[in-house]
């Protein structure tokens, strides 16, 4: 990616170095191996052999967690790039690469993970083939848009590989047009993160009124941007602690403030929508849905308690917890809409099987493993000496 006037990335980012084989990568390897074993069974015997999916709950955690939540967690790159390149906040530039890397993995795996869940996966290419296209379908828009975004992100991230492999000429050429890919990389997530919410609309009254609203695309988009900042807080803290690096507090503090701003907008929109539609009553009936609604709302409000004051934002632990809280809030918003608040009538139940969970865990293990390998070998994280200059 191109340098920003406030900070030249080529001078700031550097490989962390160190061994690739350690406890963390070993555990990731085992989890990935278990996932592969389960997937072999799934592809030989069918979805029913390993999942608890049924016709009342045709979408389980492979869709809701791996794809819908996984891609929301992968919004760090989008949120930070928007801050740097659209809002011209160049000081956040050192965060772009690590955030983009996590996004790259999140989205690429969401795209691959979909294949495991598709009942007729060998027809997968139909979704990109014009003669099969159904422009009325929300899923069609989501699939097309995510596919494009994965390609755009690899292009946005490719300067990292070019730096490593000394492809100076190509890097220079790419940087001349990179602004367009950055713009595209901001537009595409806006489109599909909102549409991931719109997926609920056609399900009609099967989705509880607490989560079924015509403005669901706006809610999902706003929450995805907020989650993007939350994920960056989370990742920065974890990466700093795992690699024993200094935490970029001078960046995380103002970013937490921006996150709270976005969060406030989300909460206002969410509340006004519930009031206007008269759906808030459902939150006060004693039901599982109401319980999960308040759990979700609690996690959306918690960051204000955790990092509401400037003093609290100076505490890295609080920033980390605020990041976790906003991620959990995003998890519940999506799980509640697609699973808890989704009711197709009496007699239908769903709780993921161990095998389903192991596949989801395996997917996250690939992300962690990939993040470790690339940050250790490629110039992604800010160079440590440069940090001390601040």
């Amino acid at each position, binding site marked *: 990616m191109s340098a920003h006037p406030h900070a030249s990335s080529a001078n700031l980012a550097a490989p962390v170095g160190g061994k690739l084989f350690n406890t963390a990568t070993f555990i990731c390897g085992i989890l990935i191996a278990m996932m592969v074993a389960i997937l072999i069974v799934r592809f030989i015997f069918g979805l029913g052999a390993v999942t608890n999916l049924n016709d009342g709950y045709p979408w389980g955690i492979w869709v809701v967690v791996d794809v819908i939540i996984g891609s929301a967690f992968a919004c760090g790159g989008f949120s930070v790039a928007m801050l740097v390149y659209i809002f011209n906040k160049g000081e956040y530039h050192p965060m772009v690469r690590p955030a983009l890397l996590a996004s790259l993995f999140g989205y690429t795996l969401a795209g691959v993970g979909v294949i495991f869940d598709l009942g007729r996966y060998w027809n997968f290419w139909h979704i990109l083939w014009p003669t099969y296209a159904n422009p009325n379908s929300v899923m069609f828009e989501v699939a097309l848009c995510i596919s494009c975004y994965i390609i755009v992100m690899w292009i946005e991230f490719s300067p990292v590989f070019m730096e490593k492999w000394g492809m100076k000429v190509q890097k220079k050429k790419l940087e001349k047009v990179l*602004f367009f890919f950055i713009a*595209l990389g901001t537009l595409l997530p806006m489109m599909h993160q909102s549409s991931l919410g719109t997926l609920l609309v056609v399900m009609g009254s099967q989705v509880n009124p607490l989560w079924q609203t015509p403005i669901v695309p706006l809610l999902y988009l706003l929450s995805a941007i907020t989650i993007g900042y939350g994920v960056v807080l989370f990742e920065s803290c974890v990466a700093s602690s795992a690699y024993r690096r200094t935490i970029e507090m001078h960046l995380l503090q103002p970013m937490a403030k921006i996150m709270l701003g976005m969060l406030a907008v989300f909460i206002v929109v969410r509340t006004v929508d519930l009031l206007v539609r008269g759906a808030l009553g459902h939150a006060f009936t004693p039901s599982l849905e109401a319980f999960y609604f308040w759990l979700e709302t609690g996690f959306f409000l918690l960051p204000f308690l955790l990092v509401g004051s400037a003093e609290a934002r100076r505490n890295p632990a609080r920033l980390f917890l605020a990041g976790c809280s906003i991620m959990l809030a995003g998890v519940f918003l999506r799980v509640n809409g697609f699973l808890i608040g989704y009711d197709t*009538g009496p007699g239908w139940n769903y709780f993921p099987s161990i095998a389903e969970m192991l596949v989801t865990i395996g997917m996250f293990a690939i992300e962690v493993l990939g993040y470790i390998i690339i940050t250790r070998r490629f110039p992604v994280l800010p160079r440590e000496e440069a940090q001390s200059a601040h």
Partner: protein
Amino acid sequence: MALEKTSRRSFLKGVLAASGAVAATVAPQQACARDTLQRPPEGLGLLYDATLCVGCQACVAACKQANDNPAEFNAMDKLWDTPLDTSGHTFNLIKMYRNGTMEQKDSELNGFSFMKTSCMHCADPSCVSACPVSAMLKDPVTGVVGYDPDACIGCRYCVAACPFGIPKYQYDSPTGKIGKCELCRHRHDEGHYSACAEVCPTGATLFGRTEDLLAEAKRRLALKPGDWARMPRGRLPAQNETPEQAAKWKGLLDQSYEAQVGNYLQHVYGEKEYGGTQVLKLSAVNFQKAGMPDLPPKSSAATSETIQHSLYGGLIMPIAVLAGLTWVAKRNVVADDEPAKGGKS
């Protein structure tokens, strides 16, 4: 100071561009509103009359045979086909409503009633709107909602979308398909209409054009409960049907018989639900109690497509937003060796 000013100005530009983008991405426009679709005039369907149904399940067996579906066992002895619900291998089922002592047929209190479960062939089907690869299509003439396994990717969005829980997936197979009633459209060319209507001994399931079936349903609702009246069986001939048109279908033309008029609720289920369905239902027991969902006259497909087309119609909005974002990004992205513009260092 100069730097402060410039970056603030471009920050504000960014705010403007991005909030414009967000507003443009999400604000639905009236101009793109998509109305609920209506039934095609020649649309085919079924009329199910719960008061005539005796629960013999002959239609369930005939459906299995017509669609080459295997038996599903849920009883201890695996002798009979005993599906508990429609599935990827069972496209039609007669379910039962039970209450209290179950003494009286078609009574909500201490009674029982039957309800057919199969595809309603909606005027504006959620499954067709949901399917990303056009594997679910509604025939423009017959209105039959058909499924093409060769196009299907198995995402099961149709399963999730249908308010009647009709499309079902075959989870027991590595190459599972979606299974649902297609009104026996594969038998129409041979002159056979829906197998369930063909075999129904009481005319509880009747095949025909939905407009004719709707008129028949309204005729029954106007009759006095308990009176004897003629009830057609098999296929209901279309209004002003010519002998040539009638010759298209096999089977006796008039199979009608005298039956007692049921104590109907004054509601033709499917006349207005979700813009109307091509399968209509009559019942003496509350439809929701008998397992049919309470649906508004506006289809959720119309709501969903209004949102989608407002945002993405002609790709106008995405392209406009992209142009704005590109303009802002071009100003804010500067290559490594290029001197920064606008007084920035």
